[in-house]
């Protein structure tokens, strides 16, 4: 067997890649252990994975980087296995490094089984369509971009905005409704984030008493980029195991997808691949999909994997390949607006650019409140109209607007101040949120509520309700 043969030396080193000749019997995607002996005779072990093979020449990527490697100081052993991580309920409460090895000094995981980190595609026939909503206690999310169990709903943000705070608040307040809402866990994957960001999340998990239900996979910004490509895969493998074999509801927070994609670009260019848009490899879409598609609910299990990936849009540009391709795969997006954020509104989410594709089947009768879909629809329409009125006002001045447009201007301000804006520790029930929405809609003339039927308007609309905003 190949597992016994050690290959001495290398035939080439290029960035994170090394080449070996004369290899017999290795398999594509197989893992190798590389032992280095430096000038002082110290030994060190690294891990690599086969990414290309032709004949007896094999190209390996080294997870920990190639610094210190020479053509003569290595011995390589092929393990005969693809990359697997140990899995078990013991994972909960542990901190691992980016390639799935314990990093908290508490010793090895005693595994119930091993899982291949690449996972496999879910058969669409075996999926269950996600329907149960997750109550986050945040009005703008619950009412207008409802998070559904089994959904992948990323946060698109920019550097310096409060995406981390929002993610931490969601974790803190998230409650599951519907049957089997009990067993809840969090998998946190840090991909190239600063140490203090990882620390912020760790502290916030501790404060909320969730630490015992969290698995953390940390690849910090100073860690090797090849490991960064493995980090989300390790995290999702753990998530799938806990969800589908242990029937838990797992919320996966992945931050920051932009660093991940940049690592992928660096790796691709060192392999000499033909670049696509902005230098990212042509397979960026497929690669991101292989992460995001690992969310969902399947038959034969009561658990679920819900993903909240966080990505910072380079230069706040939503058409940049990373947010663009992500949004084509994910089921909606929550988009931060720098303008709103700078006026002190938290969370500064741009309501119109945000979207939850799955909310239509998880809200309304039997899920939230019967009038929720209509109210959400009307809020969107009214706020869109507000934007039109604002852009008009910036040209001709507010005084020249029609009476209706002036009402929309008033509505817009109060909507942002009272509905979107919310305390960091404030959790609103769905009932509170929808009643608040009706209060706000009552600022508008009754005949402008054109997205719902008259009966509904008559039942809830009352111009007096709006008075509290102007008292």
């Amino acid at each position, binding site marked *: 067997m190949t597992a016994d043969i050690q290959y001495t030396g290398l035939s080439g080193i290029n960035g994170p890649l090394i080449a070996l000749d004369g290899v017999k019997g290795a398999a*594509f995607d197989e893992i190798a252990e590389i032992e280095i002996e430096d000038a002082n005779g110290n030994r060190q072990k690294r891990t690599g994975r086969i990414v290309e093979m032709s004949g007896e020449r094999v190209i390996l990527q080294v997870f920990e980087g190639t610094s210190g490697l020479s053509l003569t100081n290595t011995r390589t052993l092929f393990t005969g296995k693809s990359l697997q991580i140990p899995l078990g309920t013991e994972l909960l409460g542990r901190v691992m490094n980016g390639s799935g090895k314990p990093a908290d000094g508490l010793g090895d995981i005693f595994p119930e089984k091993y899982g291949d980190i690449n996972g496999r*595609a879910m058969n*669409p026939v075996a999926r269950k369509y996600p329907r149960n909503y997750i109550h986050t206690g945040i009005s703008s999310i619950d009412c207008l971009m409802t998070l559904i169990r089994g959904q992948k709903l990323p946060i698109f943000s920019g550097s310096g905005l409060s995406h981390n705070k929002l993610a931490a608040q969601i974790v803190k307040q998230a409650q599951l409704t519907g049957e089997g809402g009990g067993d809840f866990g969090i998998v946190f994957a840090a991909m190239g984030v600063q140490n203090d960001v990882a620390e912020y999340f760790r502290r916030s998990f501790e404060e909320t008493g969730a630490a015992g239900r969290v698995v953390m996979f940390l690849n910090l910004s100073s860690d090797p980029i090849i490991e960064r490509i493995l980090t989300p895969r390790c995290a999702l493998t753990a998530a799938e195991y806990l969800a589908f074999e242990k029937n838990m509801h797992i919320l996966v927070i992945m931050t920051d997808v932009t660093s991940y994609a940049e690592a992928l670009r660096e790796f691709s260019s060192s392999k000499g691949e033909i670049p696509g848009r902005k230098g990212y490899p042509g397979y960026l*879409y497929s690669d991101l999909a292989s992460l995001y598609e690992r969310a969902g609910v399947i038959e034969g299990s009561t658990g679920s994997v819900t993903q909240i990936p966080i990505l910072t849009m380079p230069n706040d540009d939503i*058409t940049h390949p990373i947010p663009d391709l992500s949004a084509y795969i994910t089921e909606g997006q929550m988009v931060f607006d720098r303008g709103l954020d700078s006026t002190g509104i938290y969370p500064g989410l741009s309501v119109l650019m945000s979207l939850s594709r799955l909310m239509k089947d998880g809200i309304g009768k039997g899920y939230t409140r019967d009038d929720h879909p209509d109210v959400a629809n009307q809020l969107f329409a009214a706020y869109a109209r507000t934007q039109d009125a604002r852009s008009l006002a910036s040209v001709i001045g507010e005084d020249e607007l029609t009476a209706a447009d002036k009402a929309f201007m008033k509505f817009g301000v109060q909507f942002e101040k009272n509905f979107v804006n919310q305390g960091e520790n404030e959790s609103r029930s769905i009932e509170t949120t929808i009643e608040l929405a009706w209060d706000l809609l009552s600022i508008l003339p009754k005949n402008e509520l*054109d997205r719902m039927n008259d009966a509904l308007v008559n039942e809830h609309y009352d111009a007096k309700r709006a008075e509290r905003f102007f008292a």
Partner: protein
Amino acid sequence: MNDVIFSINGPVVKVKESKTFSMLEMVLVGDKKLIGEVIDVDDAYTVIQVYEETSGMRPGEPVVGTGAPMFATLGPGIISNIYDGIERPLTAMRDISGAFVTEGSALPALDLKRRFDVTVKVTLGDILAAGQVYATCPETPLITHKCLAPPDLERATVSYAAPNGKYCVDDVIVKVKTPAGERSFTLAQKWAIRKPRPVKSREPLTRPLVTGQRIIDTMVPVAKGGTAAIPGGFGTGKTMNQHQIAKWCDADIIVYIGCGERGNEMTQVLEEFTELIDPKSGRPLTDRTVLIANTSNMPVAAREASIYTGITLAEYYRDMGYHIAIMADSTSRWAEALREISGRLEEMPAEEGFPAYLPSRLAEFYERAGYVTTLSGEEGSVTIIGAVSPQGSDFSEPVTQNTKRFVRCFWALDKALAYARHYPAINWITSYTEYSDQLADYYNSRVSDEFLPLRQRMVNLLAEENNLMEIVKLIGADVLPDDQKLTLEAAKLARVGFLQQNAFHKDDTYVPIDKQLYMMKAIITLYDCCLSALSKGVPLSVLTASGWFEKLTKMKYDIPNGDLSGLKDYIANITKEIGSVRS
């Protein structure tokens, strides 16, 4: 000599110095016998793209040719099924390997054990020619499956015909004598997916594909046998539009290709189409639908094949005399699969890394649409509706631009409309159709001769609004004269009351073309009456206070689809009330 794997790079595998394989031949790769296709042959290497995950494969494993190109199996049992990109049945796969897709599950596309109630249509001594029906069987309560003599058959004499009865797809039903020897036909046949199935002749496109979606049927209709593209950035509703058309259009059969899209969307189609009852037939929509699912995390090479598999199935049913609509969601993912494979082959890239043959591949695909007379003399059609996902919502990117050259109907989705939750977010200014002239006869004779003039009035009204908005953006609407203000009011009514359609409302999700006609008529009547009142000196504020604008905005909900008398009353009352207003 034995052919073995020499190199592996993702889904691309090379065999060294082999002369056994022919171009586009289907091969079985490695110990797991993964399905692959030969995409390049020269004296040094044969290049194969593998349709499944190559993880764990080793150089030195065998590669075996099948002697035939990539084919689809055609026969009863296709409808209601869900396949992956290379026609492997996903339901059967789940039963064998569980919730996650595994490689190397060599499953037959059709259920070999299911028995069909076959009526044999030929008897001993009959002459059978290409495309003729030799047997029929009910496939679903809606679709009668017709077994067609293969297109390469010259006239031949039937030498054996089985009696009517219950048969499985592999049972021999008919044998014929040809100069080359005897051939036997079962219920199923094979066809190479990259080769269009032959027809007797192509016919002009004169009938619309009626979708029940107002903006499509009135403003930008597509003909049966035509091609349409839906380009739009993320969140603009490509998939939603495709679902709506698939649910409600008047095709006999829907082939829905989920190409590189979300797994949950395919699940949604599966669930919804099982529950939804088609109002025309009273049967679940699955009875007329076949799904092809290659979700975004399934192997990329199979994504490239899924489009061809889908259109081959469609052509097969077209040859039986059915009208098929294909939803391809999304052709951009297919183009990206081409790019990915091309990159691995180290081909010279053209625009944005896409291979130079992208336009010709797109053209080949869209050219397989058409309204035809089949070999057996029946009429059938394949309509292709392809979604395009332009990167960064930029319509100047290669896939959108090249698609635009080969489709004749362009439904441009607009981000601004989607942000304002105006659905369907099809922009009425930038979308177009080249079929309107060819379809004019149909609208005049089958719907009403008022339809096209009303449509034109509405187009003009919206175009005028577009021009006026330029001014309004600068100086506000208040300074406009009353007649222009009326134009804005009427155009708003047309947008909100007519073009906007609620897919989740029980009546509004599908609107018959008659109702569309009367809704247009009500809007234009109100506009005309108000214009003439204005000319008599009635101020606009009096007219808007009449309540008719609000009433017409909600007519889509207030007037049921089945009973249009309400709309006719509206029109009569508008004429009476607005006509009698005096200044």
